[in-house]
C-alpha cells in the first residue's frame, strides 16, 4: 500500500519537475523563466530528500533558490539597465583611462 502511494508521489513529482523544466526553458519571458527556475530548485530539493540525500537537499535549497535565483535576477536587471539606458557607459574602462571626466559626468546625470 505504502509502496503504491510512494510511487504515485514519485510520478507526480517527476512530472511536475519535467513540466517546470520545460516551461522555464521555453517560456518567452526571461523573467518568468528565472522565477520558474527558482521554484524548480525548490522542488528539486524535495526530490533530493526523497532520494535520501538530505545534505544535497540543504545545499540545493540554500544555493539553488537562495543564491542562483538572486544572481539571475540581478544579472537580468543589469542587462535591462544597459539595454534601456545605453547611457550607463562602461564604468570600468572609461573611469580608468583618458575619458574619466565624461563618464563621471554621465554618472552625475
Amino acid at each position, binding site marked *: 500500500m505504502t509502496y503504491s502511494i510512494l510511487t504515485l508521489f514519485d510520478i507526480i513529482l517527476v512530472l511536475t519537475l519535467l513540466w517546470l523544466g520545460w516551461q522555464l526553458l521555453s517560456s518567452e519571458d526571461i523573467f518568468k523563466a528565472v522565477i520558474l527556475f527558482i521554484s524548480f530548485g525548490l522542488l528539486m530539493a524535495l526530490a533530493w530528500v526523497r532520494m535520501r540525500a538530505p*545534505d544535497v537537499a*540543504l*545545499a540545493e535549497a540554500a544555493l539553488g533558490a*537562495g*543564491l542562483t535565483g538572486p*544572481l539571475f535576477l*540581478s544579472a537580468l536587471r543589469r542587462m535591462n539597465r544597459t539595454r534601456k539606458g545605453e547611457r550607463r557607459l562602461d*564604468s570600468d574602462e572609461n573611469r580608468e583611462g583618458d575619458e574619466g571626466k565624461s563618464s563621471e559626468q554621465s554618472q552625475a546625470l
Partner: protein
Amino acid sequence: MLFLFLVFCLTVALGTILCSSSGSISGLASAVARLQEQSGVESPVTAVLLNFRGYDTLLEVMVLLLAVISVWSLTKAPVSRQKAEISPVQMGVVRLLAPVMCLVAAYLVWQGSHLAGGAFQGGAILGAAGVLLLVSELDWIRTVPAFAIRIGLILGPVVFTGTALGCLFYSGELLAYPEGMAGWLILLIETACALSIGLTLALLFGGGRPEDDVPEGDIP
C-alpha cells in the same frame, strides 16, 4: 530540427542503456561504512568530503575563489543608482534576519559532523545573509577595504591548505589527519571554509571588484 533529432537519438540511446543496465553495483557504500570509524566524524557525507576525498574539496574551494577572481578581473562592482531611503520595516527585517541566518549557518557547520549539513550549506546561508545586506543598500563591498575582503576570501583555502601541509609534515601524507585529531581539524577547516564560502557567494552576487583592489603604478 536536425538538432532536435540528434538530441532525441542521444536521449533514446542513453535511456535504453539506463533501463537495461540496472545499476546493481553497490558502489563504495561498504568501503565508506567500514572506514567510518577512522574518519573522525559520524556523518558519512562529511567523512567523504573532508577526509576520504578531501583533495577534491580542496580543489573545489579553489574553484570558488577562482570564480571571484575572475569576476573581479572582469568589472568593478556596479554603483547602485537609487540612494532612496530604506523603509524602516525592511531595515527591521534585515536586523532581525541577518543574525538569525548567521546562527543557522553556525549550527549547520556544527551539525555537519554527525547529521546533514556542513561547510557548504553553512556557507550558503552566510552568503544569503550577505546578499540580504547588499540588497538592502548596505554597501559593505564599498566600505570595507579590499585587503580585508581578500583576507576573508582566502581564509578558507589557506586554512585548508595549511592543515593539509601540516598533516604532510606530521604524518607523511597530505591530508592524513593524525589520530584523534581528525574531528577537530575537520571542524576547523569547515568553519574557515564556511566563512570564506559565504563571503565568496555574497561577492559573486556583488558582481565586481572593490574600487581599491588594483594598485597604482607599475607592480614590481
